[in-house]
């Protein structure tokens, strides 16, 4: 298979992923968490059943990886105000108890899995720091006083 054909099919898989799956998720932060969840914890490789069925598994993997990286950088570039809004939308769509959600996220830091394997280390650190801050802001808004991690 030529490089051009391969690139075109990765682009097709990427577009398909955006249209069929990611567009249904109401916020960018939710898309980031979703894409991170398609990555195997042990091997770091991405897998999406439907996408792999429509395209080749390797093509689907590449499209997922690219989408993950792009959304990660987009979310990392958000201002703190924007990120707090995104996180609030994500919290609302999760249908979890907000207090429990915020407590668990501050303690367990599950958002660490959202960092792509090959992210720039400074951006990865900025991302983690901003999430910690956004969580503290949301908790402050709910409780009227800051509960820091």
């Amino acid at each position, binding site marked *: 298979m030529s490089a051009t054909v391969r690139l075109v099919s990765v682009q097709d898989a990427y577009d398909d992923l955006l249209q069929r799956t990611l567009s249904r998720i109401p916020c960018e932060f939710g898309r980031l968490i979703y894409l991170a969840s398609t990555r195997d914890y042990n091997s770091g490789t991405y897998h999406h059943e439907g996408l792999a069925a429509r395209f080749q598994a390797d093509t689907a993997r590449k499209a997922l990886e690219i989408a993950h990286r792009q959304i990660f950088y987009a979310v990392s570039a958000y201002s703190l105000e924007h990120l707090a809004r995104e996180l609030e939308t994500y919290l609302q769509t999760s249908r979890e108890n907000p207090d429990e959600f915020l407590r668990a996220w501050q303690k367990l830091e599950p958002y660490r899995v959202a960092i792509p394997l090959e992210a720039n280390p400074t951006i990865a650190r900025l991302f983690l*720091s901003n999430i910690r801050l956004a969580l503290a802001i949301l908790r402050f808004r709910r409780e009227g006083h800051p509960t820091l991690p």
Partner: protein
Amino acid sequence: MGISIAVLAAVLLFVAIVVWVKSTMAEQGQPFASGASLKREDEVEAGCPAQFVTQIFAKKDLEYVSGLGSPHLEKFFQQERKSVALFWVQQTSAQIRGIMRAHLQASRGSSDLELSTEAGILLRYGGLQLLCGVLFVSIALAGPQGLQGLAARADAWAQRIREAQLGFHAAKETGRIHGV
């Protein structure tokens, strides 16, 4: 009186530089901090994009947090941003040190070195390391906000050193291809 102030300033500067060098060394020992666990050659070597450097040192987020009216949150923000800014300075300094090490190794085997180019690279490297030291101490003392200009300059210098190294490699490869 004037001499004792100068001596005190020199001692303080020396201590600050020792602290900076030690923290840079310690940081290199940590797999996450050094980027080893997240490393992808092209990205790490390209450095942190300027947009993110601006974001780390900008005042916008601080103004937003200050507007929330919680001194605790504001303090938490200052701690977090300071930590990210210091990390960026250490990463930049360590990366440029690595590039210079590789450059010196490559230069040893090269027969057509231009003295003026090499001196320029060395001067820029020395200047950048000094700037990183000043940035590190300033961030540690006062936080990153307000240092945007200095950070942008350090970032631009680091970028020039990266580009010079790329140019050096390209010239070397061309020479190899043409059998020079």
